[in-house]
């Protein structure tokens, strides 16, 4: 949570205040969640000593906002085969793209020009490679420029996003990727950041792009200022994280450096997002330059979060990570990444396991789903291939099909996580199928690898097709990437079934259990500081200049940890070492009586005392409870967690529990009932809840309970009244009888059989017929349709069993009917 005013950063760059995605914490901001870039800067990370290069159409190295950070050693012109990556200028300025991307990463700060780059102290270069024939050789050369010098390669291009292309890196470019991650950065691995496809309008799917689909690249997507899906966005299972970018015409624009030393707000699409992530990774590399290429991906998975990004398919995977096909693991958190990076321990080595390989060809039935499963132990028998905790999962597939765009492919992990590897692409009419195409998903990140995997291939024709020409799944292989040990402890506590994110939260114990976290707090060594005696050490000089924070007792040396007492506060303990400070750091408060920095309660970032109810702000992962001034991991009953401000806000007074908003109740207090997400008053019998007047009003006098005032709005009737045509009546009308309906407490008037005036017990048990009908047994028959001959004659007919004969039935209708 960024608090404005006291802690806001000011730059004199003219567009700084318009960089809305840096100021989401401000009061009037429309973006509700922060990428926390300024917070990362406040921790001291600005990309110093990190080298980023932009693979594109060149970079204007003398642009006033780029010149200071431009690095010629991180640059090359592959198209022109020289060392100057300056773009080719023409009337249309078509080669502006690289310069625009570069500004986002490392435009200088406080130079009174244009914008501020995310890593404004990083070195920025450009590799000109798009302004000419792009071949496999060109790509491979570009991806392999000085891998031991350049840390991060950012690329905002790819195969055509026309919704019908399937293309990716060629043999050489793939080898360049592999070389980069193995040997680049002195063996730590080059970082490749890639913008995901812009073919949203064309119904494209970015798993048909082999660059974003690669395990070696960090595929980045975009969201708009309001957290909506941009029109250009493609979804797929390989997207890792998201940043803000351009959206609809009324939403915030992205401003950056432009060709001819200008500034532009015309930079759009996922091209914005890849450089942003490149800049944020640069901050992380400054915090910890020993991060490997996989560490960086783990950090993104761990720290990115859904925030308020709107997607219908947010789910929690089996490892507890929230993920969606639009946004990957969610909005990046620059501060979160640098904090985690600082203390990060490298993840265990990557294992690769071909968990399953099935070469049996199978027909894909039209308008049906072909489902095939593979049970695997994830190479448990081979210690150097064994995968226990997943990272990337790749499915290599060969399919022949008359119209490729009709295909949809899913993969379901043992934990139940369903990844959409391919969606239907209506514009793809190709009959090329897929030949050993590798689909990749990150949705199973952290899950256990062992178990049953299911591949589903659906053929859903978008147009009429020859039913005899069916697709065929020729072969498929399941390739698992991951580690044999868990990368960090939190994985082991989150193995569960994948689930869609639920709106309602489970009922909490009131107050205390949720309020106070039960973890054992580290005790601080609280012994009083005492200066070491100088008796017997007559040669210790006390005439040198002490540190400015030292008090009147002097010092043993010039540093802050050599003071004998402090002017303001002392920080630390005898065990860890003490030093004098002006202001206590985050997590501590200044005790003015003892002149010491004392630790805040766990969860507090700033506080005025040690107690749990003396917090002023909270650390990451905690919510601030304003009324109690505490920091909690879960808000107590009657409060909900506000994700944007990280506060516990009060629910509506009628709610016992709510989510996201005060009015969105999930559990009501006693005396209230849940109706359409709101808690309404339980009204007494004989009354109903009037939502307009917001009070209980009387039912009609004949109703015991009702939904409105009218006599036709009864639910139950008062004693001895029965429901008849939605009204409560004292007795049933003619033609109806008093009936008990199974499962329904209320007695109702049910209709008698046709032509019956009164019936009893059941509709068929008529006791009186209407005029013109006579009662024969329990049935009413029209007088003129059933007549009898002489009584004695008919009795003879009956006793001689002659009623079976039609002639006698007609002569003695009544007698025969009565005889059955």
């Amino acid at each position, binding site marked *: 949570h960024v608090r404005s005013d006291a802690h806001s950063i000011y730059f004199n760059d003219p567009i700084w205040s318009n960089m809305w995605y840096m100021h989401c914490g401000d009061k009037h901001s429309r973006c509700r969640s922060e990428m926390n870039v300024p917070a990362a800067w406040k921790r001291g990370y600005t990309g110093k000593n990190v080298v980023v290069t932009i693979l594109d159409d060149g970079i204007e190295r003398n642009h006033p906002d780029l010149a200071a950070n431009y690095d010629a050693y991180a640059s090359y012109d592959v198209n022109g085969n020289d060392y100057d990556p300056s773009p080719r200028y023409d009337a249309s300025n078509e080669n502006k793209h690289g310069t625009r991307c570069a500004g986002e990463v490392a435009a200088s700060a406080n130079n009174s020009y244009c914008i501020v780059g995310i890593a404004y102290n990083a070195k920025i270069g450009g590799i000109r490679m798009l302004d000419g024939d792009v071949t496999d050789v060109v790509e491979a050369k570009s991806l392999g420029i000085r*891998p031991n010098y350049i840390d991060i390669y950012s690329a905002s291009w790819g195969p055509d996003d026309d919704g019908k292309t399937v293309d990716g890196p060629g043999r050489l470019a793939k080898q360049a990727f592999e070389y980069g991650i193995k040997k680049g950065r002195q063996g730590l691995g080059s970082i490749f950041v890639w913008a995901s*496809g812009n073919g949203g309008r064309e119904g494209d799917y970015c798993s048909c792009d082999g660059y974003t689909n690669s395990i070696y690249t960090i595929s980045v997507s975009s969201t708009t200022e309001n957290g909506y899906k941009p029109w250009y966005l493609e979804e797929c299972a390989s997207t890792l994280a998201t940043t803000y970018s351009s959206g609809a015409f009324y939403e915030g624009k992205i401003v950056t450096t432009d060709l001819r030393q200008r500034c532009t707000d015309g930079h759009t699409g996922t091209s914005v997002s890849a450089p942003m992530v490149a800049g944020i990774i640069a901050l992380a590399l400054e915090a910890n330059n020993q991060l490997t290429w996989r560490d960086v991906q783990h950090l993104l998975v761990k720290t990115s979060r859904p925030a308020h990004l709107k997607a219908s398919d947010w789910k929690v995977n089996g490892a507890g990570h929230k993920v969606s096909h639009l946004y990957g693991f969610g909005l990046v958190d620059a501060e979160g990444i640098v904090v985690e990076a600082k203390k990060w321990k490298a993840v265990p080595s990557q294992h690769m396991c071909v968990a399953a390989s099935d070469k049996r060809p199978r027909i894909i039935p039209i308008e049906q789903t072909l489902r095939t499963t593979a049970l695997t132990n994830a190479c448990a028998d081979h210690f150097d291939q064994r995968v226990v905790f997943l990272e990337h999962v790749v499915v290599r597939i060969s399919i022949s099909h008359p119209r490729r765009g009709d295909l949809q492919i899913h993969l379901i992990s043992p934990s139940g996580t369903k990844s959409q590897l391919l969606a239907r692409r209506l514009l793809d009419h190709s009959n090329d199928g897929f030949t050993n195409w590798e689909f990749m998903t990150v949705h199973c990140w952290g899950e256990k690898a062992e178990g049953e995997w299911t591949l589903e291939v659906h053929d859903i024709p978008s147009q009429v097709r020859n039913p005899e020409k069916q697709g065929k799944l020729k072969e498929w292989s399941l390739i698992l990437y991951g580690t044999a040990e868990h990368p960090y402890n939190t994985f082991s506590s989150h193995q569960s079934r994948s689930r869609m994110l639920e709106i309602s939260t489970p009922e909490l114990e009131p107050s205390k259990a949720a309020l106070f976290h039960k973890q054992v707090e580290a005790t601080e060594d609280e012994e009083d500081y005492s200066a070491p005696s100088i008796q017997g050490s007559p040669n210790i000089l006390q005439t040198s200049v002490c540190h400015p924070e030292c008090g009147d007792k002097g010092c043993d040396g010039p540093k802050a940890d050599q003071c004998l007492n402090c002017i303001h506060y002392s920080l630390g303990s005898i065990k860890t070492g003490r030093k004098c400070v002006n202001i206590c750091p985050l997590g501590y408060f200044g005790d003015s009586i003892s002149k010491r920095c004392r630790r805040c309660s766990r969860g507090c970032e700033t506080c005025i005392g040690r107690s749990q109810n003396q917090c002023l702000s909270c650390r990451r992962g905690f919510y601030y409870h304003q009324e109690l001034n505490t920091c909690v991991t879960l808000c107590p009953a009657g409060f909900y967690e506000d994700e944007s401000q990280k506060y516990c806000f009060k629910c509506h007074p009628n709610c016992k529990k709510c989510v996201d908003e005060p009015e969105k109740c999930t559990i009501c207090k006693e005396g209230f009932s849940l109706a359409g997400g709101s808690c309404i008053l339980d009204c007494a019998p004989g009354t109903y809840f009037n939502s307009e007047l917001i009070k209980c009003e009387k039912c009609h006098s004949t109703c015991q309970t009702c939904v409105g005032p009218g006599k036709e709005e009864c639910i139950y009737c008062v004693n001895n009244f029965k429901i008849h045509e939605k009204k409560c009546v004292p007795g049933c009308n003619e033609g109806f009888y008093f009936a008990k309906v199974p499962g329904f407490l209320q007695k109702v008037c049910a209709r008698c059989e046709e032509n019956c005036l009164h019936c009893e017990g059941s509709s068929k048990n008529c006791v009186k017929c209407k005029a013109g009908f006579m009662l024969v047994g329990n049935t009413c028959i029209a007088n003129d349709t059933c007549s009898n001959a002489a009584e004695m004659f008919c009795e003879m007919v009956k006793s001689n069993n002659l009623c079976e004969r039609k002639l006698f039935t007609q002569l003695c209708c009544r007698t025969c009917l009565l005889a059955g």
Partner: protein
Amino acid sequence: LRSPTVYTNHWAVEVLGGPAEADRVASAHGYLNLGQIGNLENYYHFYHSKTFKRSTFSSRGTHTFLRMDPKVKWLQQQEVKRRVKR
């Protein structure tokens, strides 16, 4: 209709034996060796001035002999890839 593949007069060639051997192979078959492709050991960028610069037909002729050279493990005429800025 699919856009036709456009071939160039640039080739990627895998040659065993180091840069000197790559130079020999290139000049023996009328190519110019533009050097190793990035960091990819044994992969070299060859250029042939006699091939059509941009053609929708893959080249025949000299490269067949190049392919038969015992030091050449693999070769590929470079195709222009359609790449869009995002």
